C-alpha cells in the first residue's frame, strides 16, 4: 500500500477496533441508558471505519473494499493504535480509554476536515460532530467517577493508569504520517498534543484526579505490533466472514 492508502487504513482501523470493543458492552452496561449510549458511540465509530476503509481500498486500487479490509486481514496487518484494542475492563477503564481517544479524535478530525483531499475532508467533517459528543460524554463520566464515591474514584484512577501508556502513540509521526502531511492530506498529529494535554488536564482537574505518572510509552500498533488482546477481538469480529466467506444478509 502507498502512504495515503495506509493513512486511510490507519484511520479506519482505529475506528473499527474501538467500535468493536465498545460493541462488547451491548447488553452488559451498568444501566439501559448507558448501554444505548455506548452502542451509539460504537456505531459512530463503525460508520467512520466504513468510510475510511472504503477509501483505503479505493486508493489501493486492488479491488479490496472496506469489508475485505475489515474481515479478511490478519492481526499483523492491522494498523490501529494500541489504545483502542485495550480490553474494556470495568466501566471506568472503558471510559478512560474513551477520554484519551475521543479528545484526540476530535482534534484530529477538526484538522483533517481541512485536508486538501476532499474525500478525507468530507469524512472528517461529518465525523467531527460525532466525536465531539463522544469527548463530552467521556469527560462527563470521568468527572462523575473521579469525583464520585471512594470506589468509583479508585476504579477511575486504575482505568486511567491502564490506558495512559498508550497515549503517546496517538501523536507519533512516522514516514506514512509525514508523507500524508507533505501531500497536504494528513494532519500534523504531534502538533495536536498541546491542545490534547490541556483538554485532558482540565477534565482530570474537574474530576479531582491527578495526571497518571509518566511511564514508558508503548508503541507499535501502526506497524502491526499488537497486544495479545487484538487477536481475540478479531477472532470474534471476523468469525462469520472466515467461516462463511462472502456471506451476506
Amino acid at each position, binding site marked *: 500500500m502507498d502512504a495515503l492508502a495506509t493513512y486511510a487504513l490507519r484511520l479506519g482501523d482505529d475506528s473499527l477496533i474501538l467500535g468493536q470493543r465498545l460493541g462488547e458492552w451491548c447488553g452488559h452496561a451498568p444501566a439501559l*441508558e448507558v448501554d*444505548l449510549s455506548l452502542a451509539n458511540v460504537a456505531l459512530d465509530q463503525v460508520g467512520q471505519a466504513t468510510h475510511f476503509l472504503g477509501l483505503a481500498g479505493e486508493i489501493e486500487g486492488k479491488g479490496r473494499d472496506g469489508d475485505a479490509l475489515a474481515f479478511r486481514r490478519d492481526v499483523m496487518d492491522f494498523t490501529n493504535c494500541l489504545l483502542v484494542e485495550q480490553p474494556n475492563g470495568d466501566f471506568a477503564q472503558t471510559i478512560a480509554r474513551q477520554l484519551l481517544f475521543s479528545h484526540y479524535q476530535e482534534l484530529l478530525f477538526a484538522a483533517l476536515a481541512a485536508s486538501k483531499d476532499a474525500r478525507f475532508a468530507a469524512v472528517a467533517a461529518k465525523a467531527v460532530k460525532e466525536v465531539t459528543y463522544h469527548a463530552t*460524554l467521556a469527560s462527563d463520566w470521568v468527572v462523575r467517577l473521579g469525583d464520585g464515591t471512594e470506589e468509583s474514584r479508585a476504579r477511575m484512577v486504575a482505568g486511567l493508569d491502564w490506558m495512559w501508556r498508550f497515549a503517546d502513540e496517538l501523536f507519533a509521526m512516522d514516514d506514512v504520517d509525514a508523507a500524508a502531511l507533505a501531500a497536504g492530506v494528513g494532519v500534523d498529529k504531534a502538533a495536536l498534543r498541546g491542545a490534547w494535554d490541556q483538554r485532558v488536564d482540565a477534565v482530570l482537574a474537574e474530576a479531582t484526579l491527578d495526571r497518571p505518572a509518566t511511564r514508558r510509552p508503548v508503541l507499535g500498533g501502526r506497524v502491526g505490533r499488537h497486544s495479545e488482546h487484538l487477536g481475540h477481538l478479531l477472532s470474534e469480529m471476523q468469525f462469520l466472514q472466515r467461516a462463511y466467506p462472502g456471506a451476506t444478509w
Partner: protein
Amino acid sequence: MSDPSKEWPLWEVFVRGKGGLSHRHVGSVHAADAKMALEHARDTYTRRMEGVSLWVLPSAQIVASDPGDAAALFEPAEDKVYRHPTFYKIPDGITHI
C-alpha cells in the same frame, strides 16, 4: 438495580420534532442529574433524527390529576359538542392541526 433506592431518579423526555412544532412527550430515562438526563435522552430518543430540541424534567415534579377524579373532571365535557371547532372547513395542505 436490586436496591430501588440506589437507582437513578426518573426523568420525562420531550422532543421537538422540528422547528415550529411543540415538544412532545416521548418517554423517560433514568439519570443522576439534569446533565446526564439530557445525554441519556439524546442517546435513547434521538438516534434516528427524531428531533431538533430536547426537554427533560424530573418525573417527581409532575403534578398529575387523580384518576379517581376523572369523572368529575372530564366527563362533563362529553356532551358539549358545541365546543369543538368542527364547523369550519380546513383548507387543503394544512398539516399539524
